[in-house]
Structure formats: structure tokens, C-alpha cells
């Protein structure tokens, strides 16, 4: 039986002091603060990311900072990620999350210089 660890992104927004979160460094700091590396390593724990209703924007770069390392742990496999992570958010915030995931998954190889 797995435990569920709940992560509330509202904490980063001062519980309503602002209605958006931005920036990759913020995502990286939040990752450390929430202990996501340890949670990813523990196969008995699922993670629930909660985005409060009042939030209306989270930038793709924040999600890159927060979840890039998790995606790498799951071999950039979205299905493996979805198996461990669950998002509780409004529809627009789900779209923001998807933008972040696209930014993580974008093909980054530089073409050979002719």
C-alpha cells in the first residue's frame, strides 16, 4: 500500500499574497524544500501536487525547476511520471502544468553545424 504526500504550491504564493509563481530558481528551491528527490526515490510514496483555486498562473520555467529532475528519474517517460504524481488544479492551471511538461520534454539537441 502506498502513502500519498501532498504538496501545496499555495505555500510558495504566501497563501494568496500573490496569485502566480514564476522562475526556474523558485522551482529548484521548492523541489529541495518539498524533498522531492527523497519522495521520488521512495517507491511507496505517491505525490499529490495541489494548486489552490486562487492561483491563475505558474510559468513553465517554474515547473521545469520543480519537476525536471523527477522526469529524468522516470527516464523522461510521462506515463511513469503520471503513475507517481497527481495534479489537483483548476483547468487553466492544468494547462499551465502541461505547458511546463512540454518545456521539460522539448527536444533540446542542437543540430550539427554545417
Amino acid at each position, binding site marked *: 500500500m502506498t502513502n500519498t504526500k501532498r504538496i501545496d504550491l499555495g505555500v510558495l504564493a504566501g497563501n494568496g499574497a500573490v496569485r502566480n509563481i*514564476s522562475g526556474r530558481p523558485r522551482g529548484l528551491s*521548492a523541489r529541495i524544500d518539498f524533498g522531492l528527490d527523497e519522495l521520488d526515490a521512495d517507491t511507496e510514496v505517491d505525490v499529490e501536487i495541489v494548486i489552490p483555486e486562487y492561483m491563475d498562473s505558474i*510559468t513553465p*520555467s517554474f515547473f521545469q525547476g520543480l519537476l525536471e529532475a523527477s522526469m529524468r528519474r522516470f527516464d523522461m517517460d510521462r506515463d511513469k511520471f503520471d503513475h507517481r504524481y497527481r495534479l489537483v488544479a483548476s483547468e487553466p492551471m492544468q*494547462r499551465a502544468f502541461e505547458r511546463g511538461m512540454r518545456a521539460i520534454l522539448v527536444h533540446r539537441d542542437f543540430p550539427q*553545424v554545417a
Partner: protein
Amino acid sequence: MKTSITQGLRNSPLLKRLRLIKETAAPEYVDARERAVQIIRIMLRSERQRLRRQFKRGGGKITRAGQERFVRHKSRGLLKELLQNRGVKLKKSHMLSTYKKSLLLDGIDPGRKERWRGHVKRLGRKTPISLQLKNFSFVDNPQGTLDQLQAISEADCTELIARLDFQDDHCLDAGAYLVLAESWHSMSKIFVGGAMKSPIQKVMSAIGLGKELGLSLLAATDHEDVWAFPLQRRRKAGTTADANALLKPQNREKVADQFCDLVDKWLDHPDINQELTPDGRLFIKGVVGELLCNAERHSQKDSIDGDWSVTGFMTRRIAESKAQLYCHMAFLSVGRSIAESFDDAADDVKAWIMGYVSKHQSHNVSKETLMTVCALQDRVTCDPSASSIRSGGTGLQEVLEFVSDLAETSNLENDARLVIVSGKSCILLKPPYLRGVAQSENDPREQWCNSQNTSDLPPDPSVVFDLSKHFAGTLVSVAFELDPGYLKASLESENDKHEEN
């Protein structure tokens, strides 16, 4: 007693005002200047009569001649003082002013430090110089605007007093005024008076620049038809002391909230009567967040604690009995240019950029400018730690997408412009070179600023070009027109689509 009357006249506010008109009125106001001189002469004539009345009646011919000489001597001295501009009095603040370093001004005006003179060493002019600011806009005239800022800096180095005449009919760009405001505090306040049309005064007053620049904007009695996002700054670079600062709400996030509320206010205008959709809010806050976060992360070497300033406004103008809404936003970070920030980039990023540079570098476009074009492309980041984990480098494309979306809410989309001024590089983006294009869903978005959107061809020289001066930092300035009728129609049709679904 006799002297005190003369002294009183010398200090009279009316005479001071007349003298100011005579000294500072622009050449085109010759009448006003001449009239001021005439009035001064009339006042002196009456002063002479008053002085004469002070003497007792009687006395010999010789005494009367001496008295007359005295009167004429006094009035002649006063007239000479008034007409020869000997009376430019230095304020205490001017006497104490010293050269102030400014990354922006020192870049735009090379040799500024060497040319800067203390005020006591400056020579007064019979007629103060008058700087004509015309087409003062980075989105329309980037090189010309830098030249005008250089002229302002040059005057600040050597003149005792100068006028600034803003000749545009309207504020054409938020960026030019933002740069002026950020440079102003490093100048020694020699600018007195000048011409500025009422629409510009209104905008300057509404975005708080009147206060910033210490200008009295007498025509800005109200802010009707102007909606402003007053100038905001992050605290100085490198001053973050809190170790947990990144876990707390950031200033840029507060600014993003306020900016979004402002756009909502724009859309709430009776001509449009709409509000931002949740996606609109997501996008605008995303862009403000991405741009300001980039400014913090990349403008200072070895630091993610850089500063920025931001302003914006919308104005409503009536043209051919139709309301038009013009929106302007500007984001400025002072420090390293985009090209300079690539000194830190990962080796594979540098190699790829240099491949592109070597292919297209010519006498028309510099290495620095081509590097700036590379920065537009998704996945290109100067942050080596981000590159090492295959992350980052998508912020500028997010911005281009946002502006493209806003521009498409108008049937006047060709009026949308976004200018990036960084170092000696300028990229002036407008449709069709605005939105980046991805080949497929997970491919990076690219905008190479040529007709085929390919890195194999050089960028269009009308869009990507070198500047003659160095801009120490990065300015992103956006201008677009909202067409109320079209916007309403397109939003209604979008709502219909949602309802159908």
C-alpha cells in the same frame, strides 16, 4: 532706501519670470522673448522715475546732474545684468554635484566621465541650448532614440542650463521614457523648461515620470483616456539577504498580478467591455514573470539577483471619429547584454551559436547581434546549470507568443511591434516576424527573422541590425493597438465556440 528699491525690483517675481522667458524661450518664440525685454525696459523706466522722486527738490544744476547720473548708472547696471545673462545663479545642489556613474549613460555616451565638468567650470550661454526630441521611441526609431539620449547626456556633462523639447504629438513608446527615467538620477538636473504636448504630459504624469524627472506637468490636469502601470523597480541588484527568499512571494510576482489587473482594466473600457479569460491571465502573468525572472537571472555576472524596472500604459485616441486604443509596455534590466551573458553558456550552446555566427557574420551584422538572434530560439540558455540538465531557454518565445496573441485580437495586427535593444544589437520584431514556429509539438519554437524562418539564411537587415552605441543591459519594449470592435467580435465568437462545445 534708493538701493533697496532697486534690489526689490531685482528680486521681484515678475522680473524673474520675464528674465526666465527671455533666457529660456525657444527660438520659435521670438515674440515672447522680445516682449519680455520690452517689459523689462518699461519697468526700468518706471524704476528710474521712482529713484528720481527719492531726491529732494531743489539743489543746483550740478547736484541734479549728479543725481541723474546716479539714477542712470543704477538702471543701466540693472539692465546690463538682466540682458547679459550674468545672473545664472548656481544652486547649492549644482555646486555640490559630482559625476555619477551610470552603466546606461556611460554606454550610450562614451567618454562621458572625461567630458563631465563641475558646474562652476561650465560656461553660461546667452541662449541656453534646446534639445529637440522627435520620434522618441525605441519601437519606431531605435538608433535615433539612442542618439537623442546621447545628446541629453552630452548636454548634462557641459551645460549649465538646457531645455528639453518633446516634439512628438503622443507618447510613442514606453521604453524610451523608461530609459530616460532610469538615466535621470545619474544626471545633474540642468534641464529647465521646454515644450511638451498635453497627451505626452498626461502619460508622463500617469506613469509617475513627472515626479521621477521632477517636471511640472501643468497640462496634465486629469488622466482621462490614459490607463497607466506606474513605473516599478526591483530593489538594487545583489541586495537579497534572506536565505529563504526563493520560497517566498517575489516582487516580480506582485508586479505580474498588478500588470494583469491593469490589462483587465483596459479591457473593461466601455468600448470593449470584456475581461481577461483565465488563459489570458495565465499568459500575461507568465510573460511578465518570464521576462523579469530572465532580467534577475542573466543581467549580472555570477548572480541571479539582478534588478529591473517596468512600466506600461494604454491611451485612447479618436481618429476619424473612431476610438483607438494604443498599448505600450517596457521591461528594462541594466547590466550585461544578452550577447555578453553567453560568456557563461555551456560549451554545446556556445558551439552552436558560433556555428550560426560564422555562417552569417558580415560587415552588415555583428557577431553580438547574431548571438542575440540565437537567444530568441527555444532551448538556448546562457545558464550552464540549466543546459546540463536540458532545461531552460524558453522564456523569450513565451513572450513572442503572448504578444502575437494580443496582436491577433486586432485586425490591425501589423501595428504590433516588439523591440529588443541589448548591447549594440537591435531586433525589431513585427508580423510576420513575431511568433516563433515549432515543426512539431515537442520541437523547439524558432524565429530566425527571415522570410523562410531558417538558420541557413541571414536575418532580414530591416529587422535585425547593429546600433552605433552600447546599451548596457536589455530593453524589451512592446507596442500594439487594440481594436475595440474587432476584439469584441472575436471574443464573442470565441465564447460561442465554447458554448457549442
